[in-house]
Each structure stands twice: as structure tokens, then as C-alpha cells.
């Protein structure tokens, strides 16, 4: 559905995005994560046809980014979500419906339904008088007004209270379930974890890792095993009447079992703890993992540097 090849964006000689290549399949949810200034927003804007790449190409739904037909297939939600404060949600959404060539009756129905789904009250109040969460919902409704196949969301839940945040994440996964292709960026890795199929990790303008969550964890994550024993073994801590030793490899689990048996006890439990995406991300960002530095990703494709 989305193909990005060698995307590069320079601002006055300074590369904000370098040589990004990735693809997103139809119906996939693709997340882009990274610290501030990594180039996430710039990448998303290039996908949306808002910014022209310095070099490279990107196509959405078969069209070059920026072409008129492509814009009809796309729904964009920028990070700040600025709106026209003097309008009401209804007039605002009707305006954009017109811009996207949505027939009036269809637009009316869609607006009604979407605002219902988003649970937006006070539809005839001026946008300027609304809370941040409500404004974001209006913006989301706008991104759906043309019933696009592709959604590009830049930090959709940033700056919102936990309740609204949850709502929006839920909503997004619902959209995914309906078959829409979604690319979104986030800070909060928990959101990404819950709904993304695949993820790209960006740092300093480059994609340093990409792949499905499992693959990334296997590649960059640290799985640790907590071995619960009845007796104390070297490097274990007492906890709730038992002793826990944290080890990183299966062979160490074996040695722990042996040590416990030697001490006259046994292993009660072995708990596997996989790194969260947060930790994966930190590992990657810190370049702790040598493979991250060579630029290879879990699924084997490489990001061109």
C-alpha cells in the first residue's frame, strides 16, 4: 500500500531524514517511534504529500505522494491538530468534506456517525471553546471524512488525559480492524505495543531498526528469566519466602537449577520476562546492540544509509 524508497529530506544541508526505505502492506498498522527530532514527523509529512523529499520517492495506494488522487485516499492527522477556531465541528467537517469531494448527503451521514463513535458532545459549539481532547476528536473525524484507505497519524494521543488517550488508541485499533492501513508515530511505546503490527525505530533521521514486534524483541530485546528457588543460590535475592535469581540465558537457568539441587532445594518457577518495546527502543537508541549499528533489521532488509 505504501512504498517509501530512499527518502531523504535536507533542510539547508542538514539531513532531517536520511535514506529511509520501508513499505507498509494493506491493512497493516505501522508504527514509527523515536526520540524528539528523530525525523518521524518529517517522514510522515512526506508520506502525506505535504513536504517534497529532497530525493527518493514515496507512493501511496499506487499513486505518487502529492498527486490529487492520492490525497483522496489519505487521511492525515498532524501532531498539533490546529483547527479553525471560529467554526463549529459540523461546519468544519462539512467544509473539508467539500474539499474532498464527498457528496453532501454522504458527508452528513458520515459526520453524524463518526462523531457518535468518537462520543463527541456539543457539536454546535465553536471549536475555540472546546477542550484539547474534544478538538483532537474533531480532527480525527476530519481525517476520516473522505473514508480513506490510508491513515497517517502523527502522535494522535499526545498531550491528552489518560482516558481520552485510551479512547483514541481503541478507536485506532478499531479502524485497523476495519481494514484501513495506518501509519502512526508515537512517543508512548505502550500505545505502539498494543496496536502495531510492525514498527520502525528512528533516530537522528535514520531508521535504525524495523520489523514486527516479536522480531525486534528477539533481535534487540533482552529476555531475562527469573528463576525461583527454594534455597539460596549465588546471586539471588530473598523474596516472599523464596529466592529469585535473574539470569539472561537458558544455560544460566540450567546452572541455577543445578546449584539449587546441590543446595538441597529445587526450582519452583521460571518466569520469562521479555523486554518491553521501551527497552528495545532504548537498546537500539543507545546502540548497545552491535547489530543495530550495522544497520540490519530483524526482518533482514537493511536501511540504506
Amino acid at each position, binding site marked *: 500500500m505504501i512504498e517509501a524508497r530512499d527518502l531523504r529530506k535536507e533542510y539547508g544541508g542538514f539531513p532531517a531524514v536520511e535514506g529511509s526505505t520501508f513499505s507498509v502492506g494493506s491493512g497493516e498498522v505501522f508504527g514509527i517511534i523515536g526520540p524528539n527530532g528523530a525525523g518521524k514527523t518529517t517522514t510522515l509529512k512526506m508520506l502525506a504529500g505535504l513536504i517534497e523529499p529532497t530525493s527518493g520517492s514515496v507512493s501511496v495506494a499506487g499513486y505518487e505522494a502529492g498527486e490529487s488522487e492520492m490525497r483522496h485516499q489519505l487521511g*492525515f492527522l498532524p501532531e*498539533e491538530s490546529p483547527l479553525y477556531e471560529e467554526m463549529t465541528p459540523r461546519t468544519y467537517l462539512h467544509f473539508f468534506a467539500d474539499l474532498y*469531494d464527498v457528496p453532501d448527503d454522504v458527508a452528513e451521514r458520515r459526520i453524524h456517525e463518526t462523531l457518535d463513535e468518537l462520543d463527541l458532545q456539543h457539536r454546535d459549539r465553536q471549536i475555540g471553546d472546546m477542550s484539547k481532547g474534544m478538538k483532537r476528536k474533531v480532527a480525527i473525524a476530519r481525517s476520516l471524512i473522505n473514508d480513506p484507505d490510508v491513515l497517517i497519524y502523527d502522535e494522535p494521543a499526545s498531550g491528552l488525559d489518560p482516558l481520552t488517550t485510551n479512547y483514541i488508541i481503541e478507536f485506532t485499533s478499531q479502524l485497523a480492524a476495519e481494514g484501513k492501513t495506518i501509519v502512526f508515530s508515537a512517543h508512548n511505546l505502550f500505545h505502539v505495543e498494543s496496536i502495531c503490527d510492525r514498527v520502525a525505530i528512528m533516530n537522528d533521521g535514520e531508521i535504525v531498526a524495523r520489523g514486527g514486534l516479536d522480531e525486534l524483541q528477539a533481535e534487540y530485546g533482552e529476555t531475562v528469566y527469573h528463576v525461583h528457588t527454594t534455597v539460596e543460590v549465588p546471586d539471588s535475592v530473598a523474596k516472599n519466602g523464596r529466592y529469585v535469581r535473574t539470569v539472561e540465558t537458558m544455560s544460566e537457568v540450567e546452572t541455577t537449577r543445578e546449584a539449587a539441587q546441590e543446595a538441597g532445594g529445587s526450582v519452583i518457577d521460571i518466569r520469562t520476562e521479555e523486554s518491553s518495546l521501551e527497552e528495545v527502543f532504548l537498546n537500539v537508541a543507545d546502540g548497545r546492540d552491535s547489530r543495530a549499528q550495522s544497520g540490519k533489521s530483524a526482518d533482514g532488509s537493511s536501511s540504506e544509509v
Partner: protein
Amino acid sequence: MRPRKILRIARWEVTKNAGGIDRKTAAVVAVTLLVLGGAAPLVVAQGGVTLDEGFYRVGVDEESPLYPVVESDSTFAAQDPDEELGSEIDLRIRATQVVASDSQKGQAALAELRSSVDSYNDRVMSAESNQSAAFPVTVTLEYAERNLTTTGGTDTLDGGTVNDGTPSDSGTPDDGGNDSDPADGDGSDGTIGDGSNGTTGDGPTGEESTGDGSAGGIGGIARSLTGSDATTGTPSDISPPFPFQSLILAFLFVIPLNFVIQAYGSTMLSERLNRRGELMLVAPVSRGDIIAGKTLPYFLGALFFEGLIAGGILYLQPDSGSGLYALAAVVPLILLFLSATFLGAMFARSFKELTFVTVSITVGLTTYAFVPAIFTDVTPIALISPLTIVVRDIQGVAIEPLSVLLSTLPPLFTAGLFFVLGAGLYREEDMFTQRPIPLKVLDSLAGRIHRRRSVALVVILLMPLVILAELVAVAAVYPISMGLPQPIWLGLILFSIVVIEELAKSLPIYAGFVHNRYDRSIRSALAVGALAGLGFFLAEKGLLLAQLLGGLPEVQQAAVVSAGPTAGIGPAVGLLLLLAPLALHVVTAATSAVGMRSGRQGYAIGLTAAIAIHFLYNFSVVMLVV
């Protein structure tokens, strides 16, 4: 599809803003307009606004026959003749003897008195019973073509690119009629060549325009008589007095535009704040749609106001024209104001900046609009400003369609240029960030450049700015030229013109390079340079051609004059002289282009070289001819 989008956006613009003005503001606006509207008749009732009331102080006895003259002219303030001449009064009148104070003011007062006496006498005479004794002379004024065949000692003016017949050229002190008038950017490299391709002195098909106001706006006779084409009158019907009236009329048309561009600039800038306009950039609407849609309501609004004003004036003024010409002439002016504001709003970085920009635009364009219009009655120079057409239409003078074209095409063209430049900035990278202005300039130029050929087009489009800049340069050097020896101020003017022209040719090329529209090989640079030079040459000559065809007299005379000495030159040499400027422009542009491949410093070097070449060329041509 596009017109629909434009209209939709226009509708949104109107409703959005209407919603933005709350009841309180609307009430205040309404009250204000009412109060001011109520004051207007009062002002008119007390005789309107006479700016020069009591300007000159005249000491005069009540018994003097000149007393009624002084009393009837509001410019004079009558005082005691025994007061001190110079400090307390400017003229002293005892009986029929008039003494003026020894100053510019005194002389001006004397001149005013003289013309007052004349008009007073005419008024008195028109009450006489014996009219043939009162007006013993009747005059029929005729205009006749004449073919000048000599170059001898005429102070004809060079009609190159810069000279639209502006006073800047007539004022240049080195008279004595040479083609090398340095005020003209084209003069030194093209005049001689122009002579060979210009007409040999035949003006537009010798019609004898009797009393046709447009020929030189001098048909005062036609004007003061009631709209008919009669050309006979008394001597004082010739050449009306200094046209304050034109000034005020012109001013009336410009005032509403000031308000319109305030609101327009605001709304354009507000699209840039907080990234509000970002969503529209993503939507399937083109930049042109958005800009046209947002501009349309303001254009129509301004047109409506101007129409009202024109209608009002035409209604109140008897024997005026149809008003259609007036409206036709106002359109380019409105577009010029709007486009300049749009460009300003795209460059401004805050509302404070926008205020300055708006005021500057108002002042600048108002000056452009009505300073030439002041001379409506006096010289064809006035045609630079579309307001001249408006004023003439109101005064009921016959208007040649050609003069309408002449007045309206340049501002239309310039407005188009501004819109194009502004549109180049209507994109995400320029709208929402505080990008430094030089970069923005490059962006706006590059907006239109898609491949090498476009560079020529952009250079051509830039001509109005080139002309304007050259005019400003000449106007700036002129006042100080008095105190300097000729080679120095001549060199100064030449130098500034050369710099302006080289910048105009090289900046678009550089913009294209920076935006990677074409590659940086030498071949590519040469090609682009050649195209830019060609574009400039075409624009320059095209302008000259337009002036010739448009029949601006100075240009024709200059062409004739320069045709004189070259009349004996064969066609081959003539062609060579014609092509010399082309070669010059191509070479200089290519030099800059080759230099700028390696970035900013290379650009500076290449540009300096180009300037040097061009300057040498101009200077040597000037020296040859002078």
C-alpha cells in the same frame, strides 16, 4: 472541478470571517460608520476640504482693484498692507502695484495672484453684455503630427526599458539630446540597435486628434466644454490649472483599498499561524485554488466599493463618461494591492511585521497610483497609473482604448508576478516556520522553475521589478547628481542599473540550483545562463516594442533620433547591433551561472564578473556615443 473548489473556499472565507466578527464589533463598526457618514455632508456643506486655505498672506487695501481677486481666492489671506513684507505678508498690494517678498514663497504667491486675476477677469467678463468685446479672441486648438528627421539639438529622451516616459528621464541634467541617457537601462546597450529596428519616425497612422484628451491629455479645451468634441474656446480654456481635483478624486479611490488589504493580509497571515493552513495543504486542492478562493471575496468586495464610489462620483458630476473605463482601470489596481499584500503576508513573520508591510504597501502603491494621476491633465506620463483613466473617465474626456491597455497591462502583469512569487511560498516549509528571508526569496523564485526553460520565463516575469528598481535607483541618484561631476554620477547610475539587471538574471538560476531543478554540470550552467540571458533580452526588447507600438511619443522620437545617424548602415551591421545586447546578456548570465555551481561564494564571484563585464560594455558604449 477547480472553479468549484475556488468558490467553496471563497464561501468559507466569507462565512468564517463573518462568524469571527462578534456582535459587539459589528455594532461599533456600524455606529462609527454612521457617525462619520453623518459628518461627511457637514464637511461638504462648509465647502469641502481646501488644503491650501490661507496659504499666502497678502497685504491689500480694500480700495485696491485687486482686492476682490484676493478675497475670492481662498488661497490668500487678506491682511493689512502696512505689515512687514517677508515676515508677515508675502505680497503687498497698493492700488495696482504688487510687490512680492524676495523668496520662493513670494514668487509662488505672485504666480498664484496672476492666475487668480486671470480667472477673476474671466468671471467678470462673462457677465458682460457685449460678449465679443469681453472675449475678443477665440481659439481653435489642433494637434498635428510632425516627422522629425534631424537629431539636431533636440532634448529628446531615450526610450529604452526604463523610460516609460517618466519624468526621471526628462529631468536628467545632461540634456542636449543624446541617446546615451544613462537613466535608461537599455540605452547604452541597445539604443543604436533599436534605431535600426525602430520605426523611422512615422507615428501611429497620422490621425489628427483634435481635442482628443488622450493624446497628451492636453485637450483642456475639450475638457472644460460640455463633453462635446468642440475645440473652440477662449484662451483661458487652454490648459487647466494645477489639478488638485484629480488628486482628491484619485485619493478617494485608494482609501477603501487600504482597509481591504488590512483584512486580507490578516487572513492570509492567520493561515500561517499555529500551522492552521496545514490541513488544506494536504487536501486535494491546489495552491492556486486556495489562494484564488481566499482572495476572491476581497477582490469582489473591493470592486464593489470602488464601483460605489465611481457611481457616486459619476452621478454627482455632470457630463462624465460612462464609468466603464473607470471600473476597467480600477481592476488592475485592486489586484496590485491584493497581490502585494499577499506576497507581504507570505514573507511577514508576525502581525507587527505585517502591519509595517501593509502600511508600506499602502504608501508605496498609493504614490504609484496617484502621483502620475496628478498629471492627468498635463502629460502622457500620467498613463503609467490606471487612476489616470479613472479620472479622465470621470471628467468626461474621450479615452483611447490603447491608453487603457497602456495603463492597465503593467499593473496587471506586476500583480500576476506577485501572486506567482507568493504562491511559490505557499507550502509547508515556508509557511509555518521562521525561515530566513533570503531563503524565502529563493523559494518563491523556484516555485515556478520546473526545468531549465522555466528560468527564462521567470526572468521575463521579473521585468516589472527590474524597471521599478531601476527607476528607484535613478530617482535616488538624481538629487545628488547636481553636485557631482558627470562621469561619477553617470557611473553611479550605470552601476546600479547593471547590478539590478544582473541580479534579476542570476537569482532565478541560483534558486533553481539550490532546489536541484537541474544538475550542476558546466554544460547545464551554460545552458541555463543562456536561457536566462535570452529571456531578459526578449523582455527588454518586447517592452521597447510595446512602447513603440503604444505610441508613446518620447520613445518614438528617441527611436527616430537614433535612427538618424544609423540610417545609412546596412542591414547586416544593423542586425549585429541588434544582437549585441543579446550576446551581452547571455554571456553575463552564463558567467554568473557557471560561478554559482559551487555554491554561494562561487555565485558571488560569478556575479561580480558578470557585473564587471556588463558595466564595461555599458560604459564603453556610453562613452562612444557621448
